């Protein structure tokens, strides 16, 4: 089992969390082209290595968090409170 370091609750069993997915930037619906919408809705980086993703602590504080995880080993490097749209660096 991997532990996720929730920035509010501390390290917790990953089973408490819901996986949301890669952190992407939502394009402006008024200005986006069809291709940009397609990219945003369906296409993924699907990185084999370190990736930034959003998780939801559904059985804990019920807040969203950003996590850096290695997708080949499931090692977790950090979690931050800023799980917004691409604004968490």
């Amino acid at each position, binding site marked *: *089992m991997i532990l996720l370091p929730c920035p509010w609750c501390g390290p917790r069993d*990953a*089973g408490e969390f*819901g*996986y949301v*997915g890669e952190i992407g930037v939502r394009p402006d619906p008024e200005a986006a082209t*069809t*291709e940009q919408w*397609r*990219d945003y*809705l*369906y*296409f*993924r*980086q*699907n990185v*084999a290595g370190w990736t930034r*993703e959003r998780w939801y602590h559904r059985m804990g504080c019920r807040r969203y968090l950003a996590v850096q995880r290695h*997708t*080949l*080993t*499931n090692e977790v490097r950090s979690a931050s409170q800023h799980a917004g749209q691409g604004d968490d660096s």
Partner: protein
Amino acid sequence: MADLTGRGQRRAARYSAVALLRHGIGGGAWPRAWRTHEPKRSYQVVIVGGGVHGLATAYYLARNHGITDVAVLDKGYLGGGGSGRNTAIIRSNYLTPEGVRFYDRSLGMYERLAAELNYNVMFSRRGHLTLAHSDASLRTMRWRAEVNKLSGVDSDIADPDEVKRLVPFLDTSAGARYPILGALYHPPGGIIRHDAVVWGYARAADSLGVHLHQDTEVTGIDVVGGRVSGVRTNRGPIATGTVINCTAGWSTLVSALAGVRMPVQTFPLQAAVTEPVKPFLHTVVVSGTLHVYVSQTDRGELVFGASVDPFASYSTRGSLEFIEGLAGHVLELMPSLAQLRLLRQWAGLCDMTPDFAPIMGSTGVDGFLVDVGWGTYGFKAGPVAGEAMAECVATGRTPEIIAAFGLDRFEEGRLVAEKGAAAVGH
């Protein structure tokens, strides 16, 4: 040291009762099932991925279209990915008409495969039961049964009495945590020896002149002016005008080498097998609610499969919480298995697409084709996918049977909506 020249290596001899007798009495080594070669400098077609999809594509290119200047490259050994990690279930009781037609063609090809390839693939047609534990799932089963019947597929609703008759070990009591209200019964479904399918296609493709290259990793795909010109590998460059990505788990990364993006996320799917026991389970039993499917192999082991892990990953390590959950779910269905011991568990990588349907055919790059996004249902589609991809390459046109599965459907909003029947518990 293996002979890599291809010379002095015999083509595989035909297998038969007479050959078995001759070898049994005379002794001596059987000829190798396929040959090894040094990679040529160029091939007409290069297939990336030596699993059932890649090998079937190579075989049908050679057999149906006379294209034999074909190389199949695999970074590991043949059938070491999804083809060797699936639970070998074959069925065609899908939900959409395009899905039903497609998988039914595959099932028919699997039924004839042993004779066609001269290789015993041990297809066992034994019936497939998808249990309904709620009114809602029973309604979906009825829907699937009617779609199936319209397409000529043998599929119908079974009541709990019939389910009990087919599988006496199931707990069909009303007091069960998830009572069994009925099932979708699909008599043509069954299981097959998955490694034998890989080896059979490899041997048949080899005997038609296809080159199989194991331990050969593609490290780059050269694209000049929007057209494929070759691949780079750990064994040197290979010039070619046609590259087919037939990988599972690695499809995003291989497509990225050609600059093609994929609507794919890779999830592990774990499975497990028990110690062998006497035959008692004669059908495949699936429960979507409990995220589990069970069948008994010809050796007597019970094979358990599940839904994909709850988060995307390329890791193929098994996890304890998975096996705990799986065992609990199996015992909900068949309490009498409590004494049975598990032998091993493993994981395979599943490339999930947004609509639980594959991605097949051309891409934005001329000469770069894909046969990917096979999620949890790739093995059962191997023959028909290979046949269709071979036709795609040979004719330059997309065959009608895979027209719904193009990469362009995501741009045009024509998703296939196979989620309800493609797998369990998504």
